[in-house]
């Protein structure tokens, strides 16, 4: 059971909870349990093909899962997952 920190704009989909405890031994499993518990979150995190949206980054503690094992990154009970968007832009 890892802890997932919920960014402010997504708390409307988690009954206003700012952190949710979800089961799973990998990042994919924890996010699966989280979105099973709160189905409205799914659309915000995943696109129609079921892939994490391009602007969604997931951190296990202080590590970006892209540089670990992505969805298969192992999660321990003491771990905290954070959902962090990618943001960039430019005038043209």
């Amino acid at each position, binding site marked *: 059971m890892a802890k997932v920190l919920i960014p*402010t*704009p997504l708390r409307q989909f988690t009954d206003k909870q700012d952190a949710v405890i979800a089961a799973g031994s990998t990042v994919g499993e924890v996010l699966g349990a989280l979105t099973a518990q709160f189905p409205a979150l799914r659309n915000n995190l995943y696109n129609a093909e079921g892939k994490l949206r391009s*602007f969604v980054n997931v951190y296990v503690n202080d590590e970006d899962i892209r540089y670990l094992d992505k969805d298969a990154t192992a999660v321990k009970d003491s771990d905290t997952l954070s959902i962090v968007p*990618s*943001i960039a832009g*430019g*005038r*043209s």
Partner: protein
Amino acid sequence: MIKIEPAAWTVMVQHAESTFPNECCGVMFGPSGETKTVVEAMPLANTYTGPQEDRYEISPEDLLRAERHARQNGFDLIGIFHSHPDCDAYFSKTDLENSCPWYSFVVLSIKGGRFDHANSFLPNADQTAADKEPLEFPESNG
């Protein structure tokens, strides 16, 4: 509707003017609730590695720190701001394609090094369109 309080607005305008002719970026904090009110703005590093006159990028690590700062202070990260040097405050194709629908995006137009005007936008989840959001900020920017 998003309203920016004077202290936060001063930080945003000063950051945008002092980084001219490059684009700048940062985050905005406020209490959660029905109306979005920005009570604190925090400049962040533009981490885009090419020329920064027409691009900006926020590192996820900085956003993670900003989110933690908000949690510790009992308020929320409600928006992102960036500047458009010598160009109007529209939401460009690049802005849209690299946006996130969870936040308000305030764009400050800086012309000749001075603040000119600003707009706020709410991009959709598919990064295909952004609605303009009513924006209120202090007349005088200090």
